[in-house]
């Protein structure tokens, strides 16, 4: 029987955190700021879902922050040059797909370790972006922010799109064969090969999908502000990976659910606002993020050890 123990643990922790906030800092739940905060986390949610799929196939992609930045600037430039919004969005997705192809080819095609490959592409895209933009802010034309609608509608659109995407992905992972292929590849690559499930193709596809999702995330981020910073993606990879790992996606592949990823992300991103609401300095965000990753890893490690002893 599948047990959702990690999802439960994280869910309870999240509830406790929210309950504490409700009691001690009720203005945390004030309508508009809450919606804004939620909307601003939607790009991270899309990235976290993508990287969760990568980790489920027993790989990793730490270049997603750079891909995100690249897609954002490409879409922004396209929009600024007078392209229509849908065309600009398409540009972002295409750029992301292309970067995903590079990672996928190096990892699945050449059999290189994904950590080093994506470390290299991380810095490559990042520096290309710096060379190109030289740190300038990129102003966006009107009609891009909030898809040309009001802030309220725009935020609703962003949140709605992200959650619709999450639900669709969760459904696809459960009910489409590609989902089973992903889990099977991560669970035992050799068995997947013997069963004719083409694990290499799956791995390649997941990296390409990751690139496309970086594009989607970039678009969801783009529409929330009047301009873009070229370095907006830096550090986002850690947040996404942390969300996935905390939410129960096993780093050894084959395990985890997208609902867990959602809970993991919500727990992580609410730590910092909670700190502020409890009048604690927010500088601890990164440290707490690291600590939570290590705790999740250690929990996995202890579980493995116990299992081994049982057998």
């Amino acid at each position: 029987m599948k047990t959702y123990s990690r999802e439960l643990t994280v869910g309870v922790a999240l509830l406790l955190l929210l309950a504490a906030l409700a009691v001690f800092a009720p203005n945390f739940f004030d309508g508009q700021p809450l919606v804004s905060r939620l909307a601003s986390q939607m790009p991270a949610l899309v990235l976290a879902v993508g990287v969760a799929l990568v980790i489920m196939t027993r790989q990793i992609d730490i270049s997603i922050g750079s891909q995100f930045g690249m897609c954002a600037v490409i879409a922004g430039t396209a929009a600024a040059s007078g392209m229509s919004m849908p065309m600009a969005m398409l540009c972002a997705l295409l750029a992301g797909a292309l970067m995903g192809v590079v990672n996928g080819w190096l990892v699945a095609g050449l059999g290189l370790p994904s950590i080093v490959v994506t470390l290299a592409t991380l810095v490559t895209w990042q520096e290309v972006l710096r060379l190109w933009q030289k740190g300038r802010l990129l102003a966006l034309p009107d009609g891009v922010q909030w898809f040309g609608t009001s802030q309220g509608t725009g935020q609703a659109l962003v949140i709605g799109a992200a959650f619709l995407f999450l639900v669709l992905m969760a459904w696809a992972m459960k009910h489409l064969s590609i989902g089973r292929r992903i889990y099977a590849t991560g669970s035992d690559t050799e068995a997947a090969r013997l069963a004719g499930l083409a694990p290499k193709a799956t791995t390649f596809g997941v990296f390409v999908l990751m690139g496309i999702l970086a594009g989607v995330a970039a678009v969801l981020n783009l529409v929330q502000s009047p301009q873009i910073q070229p370095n907006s993606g830096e550090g986002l990879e850690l947040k996404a990976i942390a969300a996935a790992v905390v939410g129960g996606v096993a780093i050894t592949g084959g395990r985890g659910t997208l609902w867990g990823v959602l809970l993991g992300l919500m727990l992580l991103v609410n730590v910092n606002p909670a700190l502020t609401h409890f009048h604690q300095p927010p500088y601890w965000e990164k440290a707490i993020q690291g600590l939570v990753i290590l705790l999740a890893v250690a929990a996995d490690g202890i579980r493995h050890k116990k299992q081994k002893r049982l057998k």
Partner: protein
Amino acid sequence: MENMGRAFVLKTLLKLTEIRKSFGAVKALKGVSFELRAGEVHALLGENGAGKSTLIKVMTGAHRPDGGIMELGGEEVSGLTPVRAQELGIACIYQQPALFPDLSVMENIGLRLEKVGIFHRVKWAMWRRKAEELLGQIGAEISPEAEVRSLSMPEQQLVEIACALGSGARIVIMDEPTASLTQKEQHLLFQVVRNLRAKGVGVVYISHRLEEIFALADRVTVLRDGESVGTNAVDGLNEAQMIRLMVGRDVETIYPTAEEEPGEVVLEVKNLACAESGLEGMSFQVRAGEVFGLAGLVGAGRTELARVLFGITPADGGSFSLNGKTVEIRSPREAISHGIAYVPEDRRRHGVVLEMAVAENITMASHRRWFKAGILRGGVETEAAQSFVEALGIKLSSPAAPGGSLSGGNQQKVSVARWLATQPKLLILDEPTQGVDVGAKGEIHRLVRELAKEGLAVLMISSDLPEIIGMSDRVGVMREGRLVEIFDNAHAEQVMAAALGSGEVAR
């Protein structure tokens, strides 16, 4: 049902003629012929290392034979791959199931049986129904929802069998399917096999347990040393004849014999147990100057015992003493410091680091002996390695050559040299001549006898029956995690019977 089965009897499903396969210098199959008919259970019998697993891998396309003809349904096939073999209706149930541990039982069955596309709907209801049906057919009480990781080994095997059953295979190969099944599960399995037979499926059944073969098989082919000794109808044979076919008759001649009486007790084991490796109540002694042979089937717990003695999986019950002193060993390092040496079974993974130089390999377990304060000294190392190379007659271009460049026999000698370099009191050899050619085999035998003569206590694990009879002063036989008998003057038939658990037949 019975009549239906008869109708298929004459049709030949699979025919192998003069199949040959070598790994380097080792000839695993020297021209094996085998024929499988529709609606029969054909047992494949032979000692470990006789070539059964190689033959299976040829049938499933995992190994490509060097020569010989393979015909399927009358048509010659060449260039068989595992995927192609599946398409042709050949299913194999290995001892180690190739399942997805993180997925549920029905997913494993579904993914195996269906051609899954990329964006097709997963037919959960159908997968579950199919899983229930197939598991029901073999009488396995496993929930289709259960995660495979949480299943026991026999349960996982049943899932494999369900997969083979559902794939509609015409040829089903079972590699010791009952090795870890309970009595009840075994009976269910027999029923499954009989059902398959009735449907006209050809079953290749590999087992060491003679009573199973009598209960189940129609014909039996015996393999010995990579050759097929013959195919017989099971009805025409009794157990003793079958054992004789497996063992052969050339036991006494080539082995060097002991000349002196053994000395003091070096290793004394009392009631040793280790839950993790499934060992219980082991008690025996090994004396200086003696070769104590340990016989038994694969999975009887011999390697597990060696791993316990060597501290890889420490014991959790009983005691053992070395030279009269009770010791507790929790790691290989402690074992080495107490004078225990272990030449492991899996030479390529555990015995020799293939990428590293022979000299580095030889000194690896005895760094402290050669290098003061952990500082490497090339001269000392080369000299040490050279002395072992000469003493053991290792053939190599230079001690700086990587271990992987040597032949199997020479690699094995390097592995032995590594452990002699630790100046042990007790030497444990695990399948010392597996995958070694005949010449090197004789040399290793002489070496072992010489070491014993010099006062070393030797515990030798081997599945090669003539070897264990010929080499050992005493032979202990293990079965299912226990030491069942110790023979002072063993005969091949006695040992085989004890290992098989077939009681009084051979005596």
